[in-house]
Each structure stands twice: as C-alpha cells, then as structure tokens.
C-alpha cells in the first residue's frame, strides 16, 4: 500500500468450477517494483489465480483492480491496453512465424497504422513497422537472443525459446508482468540467469510469478502468497513464509530442510 501508484489487487476472489472450489476468498496485491511469488502444491489454484488476473476466468465473487481502478468484464485481449503482459506455461510461441515476428505480435497493440494504410502500404505503415521492428529487436537484444531473429522457434533450444516468449511479453513495455512457471525446463545456471534478469525488471514494472522452483522463488521474490486448496494459508517475505509452520505442513515440508542455505 506504500506505493503511490497501486498495482494489481485482488480482493476476496472466489472461483468455483461446478462443485469444486478452486479459489476461496483470495486477496493479494502485486505492487510496482516488487516481485510477488505465488506458490503452493499442485492443484492449489495457482493457475486459476493467474487466469483470473488475465480475464480467462471470471471470478464468482470478489473484485480485481489495477492501478486503483476496478476491472470489470476483463477480457484477455484487453490486457495489452492495460499494460499487463503474461507468459504462458507452454511457451505459446507462434511456430510458423519467425522469432522476430513472434515478438512483433507482442508489440502489436502499440501499432498506430491501421488496415487501410497496410493495404496500400503507405509510408505511414512502413514507418510504423520499422519502429516496432526496432523495438522488437531491442527486446530480443536485451535478453541476448537477437541473433535468432530470423529463425523459427522449433529449431531453437528450449532456453532460447523461453527467452523469446519473455521478449514477446516485454516488448509491449508492461507495467505488470505475469509469469507462469518461468523456470520450468531451465538448467540451474539458466535459472540463476533468469533470477537476476527478473530482479532487474523491477525497475520498470511489477512482476507476479507462479513457480515450483523454491530456489528461484526464495531468491527473487519480495513477497510470497502461499495457496493450498484454493485458500491463502500464508503471506509475507520468503523468510517469514519459510518459517511458517502451516506452510511447512501443507507444502514445503522436508523440502525446506533439503534446500541448502545460501
């Protein structure tokens, strides 16, 4: 609540699928310049929470607000206009488009030329394309994968594809970045790389991530929300959460003891 400009806030969000309660009275806030981690055992409701934040799932009760304004009837394609970006668990790259085109799709919302100038290929459209192209290349370059711009995703190593997906999310210069398991499939070295990258992003935006890898979560996040059976069972800094007996019982258990202290 300290930030002058509030980020994404969920208040008392409840989601049920048929008889199953996926989320029950969940409240949280993703603040600017901070990384919020959402953790919890499988089936705890993490993905549902993400889908609520993106408009894929409409909550049965509760409110969602962004920058202090309540979001009603949020639809996924509205996100870009709200300067919210999200990565997908399965990468979701466009397989038959080059890496550069993939990232350009992420910048599409900021295009200023429309259908007719594209049809006639007016100078306006060409200038606009050149500008977006420059931004897309800069986003790829920032993640060190600009050399793959002309390649197709299927021919690239997984870690590179992950960075392309991230570049596509970052090219729109979001104020909130939602990352769905950003570390899955990465090696330890790549994960450390990702960690420092995410810390660097907080200069510009709020970050909220769902993640299984405790090392990453503990080292990167400012705040954690722990879900279990659709309820928030703990919140706080990584250290507070780690010492919380309820969390240990529900989720971390021996995993914490097994993790070597840094």
């Amino acid at each position, binding site marked *: 609540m300290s930030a002058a400009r509030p980020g994404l806030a969920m208040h008392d969000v409840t989601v049920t699928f048929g008889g199953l309660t996926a989320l029950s009275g969940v409240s949280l806030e993703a603040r600017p310049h901070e990384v919020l981690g959402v953790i919890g055992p499988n089936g705890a409701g993490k993905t549902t929470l993400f889908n609520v934040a993106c408009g894929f799932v409409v909550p049965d009760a509760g409110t969602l607000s962004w920058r202090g304004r309540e979001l009603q009837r949020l639809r996924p*394609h509205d*996100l870009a*206009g709200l300067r919210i970006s999200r990565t997908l668990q399965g990468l*979701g790259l466009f397989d*038959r*488009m080059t890496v550069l*085109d993939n990232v350009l*799709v992420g910048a599409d919302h900021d295009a200023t030329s429309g259908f007719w100038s594209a049809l006639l290929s007016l100078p306006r459209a060409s200038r606009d*394309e050149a500008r977006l192209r420059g931004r897309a290349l800069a986003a790829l370059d920032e993640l060190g994968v600009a050399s793959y711009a002309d390649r197709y995703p299927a021919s690239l190593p997984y870690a590179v594809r992950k960075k392309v997906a991230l570049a596509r999310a970052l090219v*729109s210069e979001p104020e909130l970045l939602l990352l769905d398991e950003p570390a899955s499939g990465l090696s330890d070295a790549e994960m450390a790389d990702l960690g420092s990258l995410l810390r660097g992003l907080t200069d510009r935006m709020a970050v909220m991530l769902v993640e299984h890898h405790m090392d990453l979560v503990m080292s990167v996040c400012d705040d954690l929300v722990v879900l279990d059976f659709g309820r928030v069972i703990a919140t706080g800094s990584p250290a507070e959460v780690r010492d919380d007996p309820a969390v240990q019982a529900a989720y971390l258990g021996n995993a914490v003891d097994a993790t070597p202290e840094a």
Partner: protein
Amino acid sequence: MRRLLGQPLVLALLGAVVIIVVLTGVDDFRAVQLTQMAYLGIAAGGLTVLTGLNGQISLGHGALMAIGAYTTALLLQDDEPTLPLLAVLVVATVVTLVVGAAIGVAAARLHGPYLAGATLALAVAVPGIALYFGDTLGGEQGLRVRVPDPPGWLLDAAYFVTGQDLTPSTYVAFLGWFVLVVTYVGLAHLSRGRVGRRWRAVRDDEVAAEVAGIALGRARVSAFVVSAAAAGAAGFVMAVSVRLAAPSGYSLTLSLMLLTAVVLGGLGTLSGALVGAALLTFLPQVITDAGVSAGLDDIRAAELAPLVYGLVLVAVVLLAPAGLVGSLRLAWHRLRATTTSKGAT
C-alpha cells in the same frame, strides 16, 4: 536489389510487362484460357490468405464468386451500360464483401470441420437461391452479361503499345489480369505487414495471440472479409469472361477446385495460388492432348484429365505437403541455412 524485387509493387510492374507481352502474343482461345487462370487465381489468392494465413477453411468460395458474378450480371443487363465496368467491379466486390462479413461473423465462432460444414452449406445454398428467385436471377439458364465495348482511348492506347487491335477476348483477359495484379498487390501488402501478422498469430496459437492483445473474433472476421472481397472480384471477372452467370458455373466443384489449387500451390503463398490456378486451367488440356497423341479416343482422353489431376494432388500432399511453391521455399531456406552456418564456422 533483392529487397527491391521483394516489393509487391515492383513485382506487380514486372508482372504487368509479362502480361502485356504474353497477352499480345496469344490467339483468342488462349486469351480465354488465360482469363480463366486469372479469375481462378484471384479467388485462390483470397482463399490462400484465409486458409494459409488465418487457418480458416472455406468450401464456400465458389458461392462467394457467384455473388460477385450475379451482382455483375444484374448491373450489366442493358445494352447501354449504366455504370462503367470498373464501377461494376467495385460494386460486385463490395456486395460480396458485405455477404462475406456476415458469414465471417458466424464463421469466427466455428472451427475446423464445423467451419467447413457451414461454408459447405453456403456452397450448396447459393446456386439454390438462383433457382428459387428464377424471375430475377434467371433460374437454370442464368443471366446474360452484356459486356460494354472497351472505351476508345483504351483501344487507341492498346494499338499504340502492341500494334494490334484489341479483340474482345483479349480485352477481357487484360481486365482479368489487371484485377489479379491489383488484388495480389493488396493481399501481399496485408499479409506481410501488421494485419497478416495478426492473422498468422491467431492461426498458430489462439491463447497467445489473445494475451498479446489480439481480439480473435475481429482478426478472423477481417481475414474472411478480405478473402470474400477477392472472391467477389473473381466472380466479376468470370461473369465478364463467360458472359453468363448461371448456377451450374458456381457449383460445389468450383469451391473444391479453388481449395485444391491453394493446396497444390502451397498454403499461404500468392505465387502458390497462381501456380495452382495455372494447373487447374492448363493441366486438363495438356493431359487430354497427351492422351490423344498416345492413341486414346477423344472421350477417353478427356476422362484422363481428372484422374491425372487427382493423382497430382495426392502426390503433392504426400511428397510435398507444403505445396509446390511452399516446398521450393523450404528447400531454399534449408540451403541458405546450411550455407550460412558453414560460412560462420
């Protein structure tokens, strides 16, 4: 130089030169065939954008051509034309575009086989409408199309450039290829820019496209509308060429032919659509001639054409699933990739 050659307008100018050279050198029979290639090419170009770039399948593009053709016929009933021919083209295109928008809105909610089914219904229904409203639309016999004579200045200009008088068939052929070039330039501009990128993104991954800010419905409808407009223009050229708009010309067979042309040439490429249209137009003739010279009688030789066409289609799908042009492109990309990686090491 390569960049320049890749520009649609530059390609169009080169194409225009080739078209003028070819069309001045052919007899009326070939001119009619080339007009057929043009209207099949225009419709196939629109379809390849829809199916190849946006992933929507349409079995109804023959019916959309019929809408353009009947609009043309209705406007060209009198001996003294009320509208200049290019205005008729615009009206035919816009009418088809509007119908396409209505279908596109419905189609945007459908996927794969369901979309194929819905557009199939269109292909079956449109000829039926022509029969039902027989008084206005001429029923089984169809409507005659009275093509106005070319304007005097055009005849003079044609004589000045080619040194020959413009026959009616060559005039229509020029008209058809003019429409094709304009359509292809527009389609190429759309598909290489922002609009085409949105279509392709929706085709490849709906969720990712949506998260990136693309409204799926709008992208699908716009692809369908653009594609329908091309089909309407193709219907105009066909009506002007065959001088008739009759239900039999726009049966399901036409829709299927367009789809096979697009698959043969390679989904999503305009050059592929043109190659497919050329095959559709000329392959039957070539096969029939070959059959006759191999000693078959005329009827047997004519029956050979669909067989060979079917075999070519099966062979392309099995051996070159990216289509003729698509496979060539893939081979070229591979070649370039290997040479550049060699150069790097």
